[in-house]
């Protein structure tokens, strides 16, 4: 059970505690509201993640299949050689976005898919299997960029949700019960003091009455 805090049982402390408890209550209400909003946001993004993930993974599997065919038809060394020639600086636009005070990444890729002639390897000595593999991987890359943004946003929301939950629980199960217990302790102590005083007065009055 929540133990009362170690403070002196005075009326002043009681007023202070009442203020604190109403503040804690308000904080708790706000946190609960925030949690509700986060949960809605979370499920919204979860739906999108599921869809994006299915798309991206299917495309990635297709890409790997195309690459296997390419490796078989063109040869491992030739494919690797072409892959080194195909490298370029990819333009990935990355920034951060704020969703309800949570920092989430925003990613955008420019021109993931290229035309055959833009890929950089010579088309004269290479097979179309190589072009297929490259195209499928370019598509997969585009989808994976989208998925990465969504997954990371979801992770950020989940983290925030956990944090909010922990705070709300701390208020609800620890801080507020402790404040309540302390208030009760002070009130009982004050009542007790009043009773002591009352009987003391009675006694004095009786003594004065006997002396007169």
């Amino acid at each position, binding site marked *: 059970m929540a133990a009362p805090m170690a403070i002196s049982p005075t009326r002043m402390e009681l007023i202070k505690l009442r203020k604190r408890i109403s503040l804690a209550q308000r904080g708790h209400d706000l946190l609960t509201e925030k949690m509700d909003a986060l949960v809605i946001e979370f499920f919204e993004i979860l739906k999108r993640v599921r869809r994006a993930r299915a798309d991206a993974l299917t495309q990635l599997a297709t890409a790997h299949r195309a690459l296997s065919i390419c490796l078989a038809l063109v040869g491992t060394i030739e494919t690797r050689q072409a892959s080194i020639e195909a490298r370029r600086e990819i333009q990935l636009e990355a920034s951060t976005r704020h969703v309800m005070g949570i920092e989430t990444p925003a990613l955008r890729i420019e021109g993931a898919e*290229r035309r055959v002639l833009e890929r950089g390897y010579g088309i004269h000595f290479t097979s179309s299997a190589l072009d297929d593999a490259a195209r499928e991987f370019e598509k997969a890359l585009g989808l994976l960029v989208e998925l990465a*943004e969504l997954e990371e946003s979801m992770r950020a929301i989940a983290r925030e949700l956990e944090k909010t939950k922990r705070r709300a629980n701390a208020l609800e199960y620890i801080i507020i019960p402790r404040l309540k217990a302390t208030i009760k302790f002070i009130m009982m102590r004050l009542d007790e003091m009043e009773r002591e005083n009352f009987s003391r007065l009675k006694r004095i009055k009786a003594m004065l009455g006997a002396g007169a």
Partner: protein
Amino acid sequence: MSYKIAVIGDADTVTGFSLAGVRHVHVHVSKEETLSKLRRFLMEGDVGLLLITHRVIEDLGEDFKLLMRTKGVLPVVLAIPDKTGYAPAVDELYELIKRAVGARVTEKIGGD
């Protein structure tokens, strides 16, 4: 500002993404090498997205988790399956959902 994409994985994954034009790649051979490369990708500050295969993540184990906890919002790290479609039995993301939502359910029961 424009960022780079980096890929860490087995030879085939790396070849595939190279074909798609990714320049910053690393073929996973030994744990130490991959870890130092991974650290470089995370610290450089110009990598916006890092793709890494599930199998490599498993090989790196705790060191990877530690690095993930200490990194900022960028780079975004995305785990991808390799050509065998291998993904771990316990999905890290769904584990997260269970933690975030599951505990909420118990709280509802406790609150009533």
